[in-house]
């Protein structure tokens, strides 16, 4: 099953920032990492990754540096800025709160058990 585009758009920034927090990456590398580490969940709509990157860059949360990779190709590497690190901290916390709240509502748990019918 694939995520719908709307879900993807909401979750992508947090996912990207989480990955970039581990190490700086270039565009395609980031797309592959998302695909791989999310169990191919984000495999559809890689353009969304760039949209998110541009938006994060505009807001000063990621910075971009161009340099040669080990293969010799020049690539643009994205990394978190200090503002980005603070943003990630806040949003991870928010995500946790949201997840906890949804969890308390029972979202994601097994559905209501049918009453045992005496046989």
């Amino acid at each position: 099953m694939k995520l719908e585009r709307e879900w993807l758009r909401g979750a992508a920034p947090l996912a990207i920032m989480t990955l970039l927090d581990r190490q700086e990456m270039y565009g395609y590398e980031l797309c592959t990492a998302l695909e791989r580490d999310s169990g191919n969940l984000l495999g559809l709509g890689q353009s969304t990754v760039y949209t998110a990157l541009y938006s994060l860059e505009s807001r000063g949360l990621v910075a971009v540096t161009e340099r040669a990779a080990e293969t010799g190709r020049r690539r643009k590497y994205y990394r978190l800025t200090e503002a980005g690190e603070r943003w990630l901290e806040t949003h991870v916390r928010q995500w946790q709160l949201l997840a906890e709240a949804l969890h308390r509502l029972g979202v994601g748990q097994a559905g209501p058990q049918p009453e045992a019918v005496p046989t």
Partner: protein
Amino acid sequence: MSRSHDQRGSLPPEIEGLITSVLDHAKVDSSARLRLESDLRDHFEDGLAAGRSAASLVEAFGPARTAADEMARVLPSEGEERALGVASWRAWSGARDRRPSAVATLFGELRNGARSLLRTPRFALAVMCTLALGVGANAAVFTVLEAVLLRPLGYSEPEKLVRIHELVGPEGDDYDYLRGPTVNEMRTWTDLFEGVGAMYTYRDIGRDLTGDGEPQRLLAMPVSSGFFRTLGASPILGRVFDEDESFGPGEYEGGPPNVAVISHDLWSERFGADTGIVGRAVQLDGRSVEIVGVMPPGFTNPIGSPADLWTPQDMRLGGSNHWGNHHLTAVARLRDDVTLDQARARLAPLVAGAREREPASGEWSVVLVPLQQDLVGPARTNMLWVLTAAVALVLLSACVNAGNLVFARGLHRQRELALRAALGSARARLVTHLAAEYFWLALGGTLLGLALGLVGVSALLEASKGVLPLAAQPSLNAQVFGYGALVTLITMALFGVAPALLLSGVRPASTLGSGSRGTEPKGMALLRSGFVVAQAAVAVALIAGAGLLLRSFVEVRSAELGLETDRTLTFEVHLPGARYGEGADRHRFHQEFQRRVAALPSVTSVGATSRLPLVGRYHVWGSIFRLDSGSFEYLDRSVARSGAADVRVVTGDTFRALGIPVLSGSRPEDFREGDDPVVWLSRSVAEKLTPGGAAEGLTVGAAGAVRRVAGVVEDVASDGRGTSYPTVYVPHRDMSEDRNWPLTQVVRSSLDPAELENMIRAELTAMDPGLVLYRPKPVANLLDEARAQDRFALMLMALFAGLAVLLAAAGTYGVLAGMVARRRKEIGIRIALGAGRRSVRWTVLRSALGLTAFGSVLGLGVAWFGSRGLATLLFGVSTSTPWVYALSALLVLALGIVSGLLPAQRATRIDPAAMLTE
């Protein structure tokens, strides 16, 4: 910026299609588009390199149109992106529209332009300094032009003020001063004038203020009672003169009523701004005079020297106020409902009526000249316009030079511009991009130039002493700044927008397809050649102008003055009427004083005169007659205006002290008390009286008496150009009772003037401690002042020509150096194929010569045209002096060769081997 697509291999068609589709749908500026394309290509190349199929990559990317919309909304804009380069893209905050607003774009471009210039400070400084030279010189000259010609005089409604001249005689063609009865007549012309104000023409009336504190020599101006009202000026304290104080009742009595209006300066400096000053009596020349009013600060006489105080001019008929005495200067204010033309038209019948009523008034008419025009005069007006035109040419040359620098740099950026154009950047956008940078250059150059102009103005003021009229006080004001803004606009248009338009017209295909070095489009090469031509033309024109003025100044310097100007000190000693009331007392004083001064070491001769040479006409007085068969005869009008000559009252050895040759007859010192009245004639008077004969012994009527001609002296210059007028010299001995003559002493000595002055002052104090040695000045300084205008025009023109030469040299060098740099390959090949160094050098020099020659021809045309404006400034030299033009053109050609030498030398040093392997 990452490598762009022209250097990459192409991608599979489905990927290319996707990229094209995204780029087509993303409506973003050229810079964002570049970034987007680069990112997409990186992405797909990485994917293909990782072994994925094109189809799977396209699928994983998502729908092109949605992606384009989303990306376009968040992509960093051009201004942001270019500012610091890829390495440090800075985010901008908040969400944006798909297209940045025009204002945001503009600000982005401006910020971007400033940063770009900061990265190339030497270039920016060079351009700004070049512009500053042009703007600064313009601001300085315009400041003076504005003050003298454009700014209204400092009186209320100055455009209604006119100077009145009289024309006398049947073929009167020379302005004359006014007669008392004429002014009285004009007071009745109330249909034309709101008021008429008369001033005593023989200005600089010195009066001694005594009483409280140090005795002080003051300049007093006798004026009629209408004077202040006509100029629209009111006193800040007290009153001005009332009608009776000038116009009667009664008859002329001579001496002014004992009242005075004082200037603001005198009031604040001498009287400590005492508000109770009105009604106070002060001692003027030993007479008690009541101060009746104080004028506001800045109020000054429109004509003549600034006055410390004003006294009433006796305008009642009789005495000096008769139809034969032209001694007044008048200003009138036109009625509001009368224009100058109407006033001029209505004058004739009024004058005709007056002449009919007063047959004794003779033949005369009246001329009205706008006051400002009268004050500045045609020669000065012409000079200022010529200088303004010259300085505008300097600005043009500076703009051209700046444009040249900008182009040279622009060529290095052609690839960048071509890439932008290829990626769809609209031309307007490219122009904005370039113009933003040039905007800062123009602004910087202008501000720097205005600062330079401030310095220039004070230098100009220093240099223009005695050249500009009294009422004009150059200062920076709104008009000057307005002019600065105008110059900025012109500057920006000339060198900012024009190059931007041209550079933005690059053709992507040809530029991107060429080698690594930028090539110059044909139009641009032509334009840069045009720069050299224009600069050469400007230089030739200005050098020719300066050459003509220089030639003229040489003529002025060698003009016959009729006197010796070296080693002569002049100064005034004024004898207060209270202590030297009788003419005989005054004459005795002068004789004794001159005897004492003559006894000082190194003093060779001492004399005194009522008016020095070189300082203009003065005291045109009395008619010269020749006693011929018992009848008097008027001198020819072509010799003596109105049949009159300038009168000089002299005492002592004046001719020798001033170095005026006595051509025949005796010297003043040969005469003693009690001899018959005598007179000396200047050569032109004598030649007219007795053509070819000896004038000595003739009896003539001069300076109010019948006198015997004692001798003939050389004509003496009344200005710095050697202009002389018929003059007669009468001894003070015969004239001492006529009035208290303000004599100027003249002392010839080899001593240093300052040392001599001290010794003379000691003698003066020993004779009378209350006397002042006033306005000491060597005759050489008088001459300098008399030639101030000629020197001023020459100096400025030479300065501008020098600037033009510098700019032209820099410009020619720049263009040729650029040409050599661009043609390195070609020159290298030619050298490799065996071309000699000499032939290579000649190629470059030929370009220099060709361009400057073309410019010289154009410049000669400009000079020829402009010389017509110069004609009135020239003395003893024709505007069509061929060698001046030839020399100017030769100079500029030589300049072209010199400027081309370095680039030519560089061309011969090109190493073909290194060149071909590049």
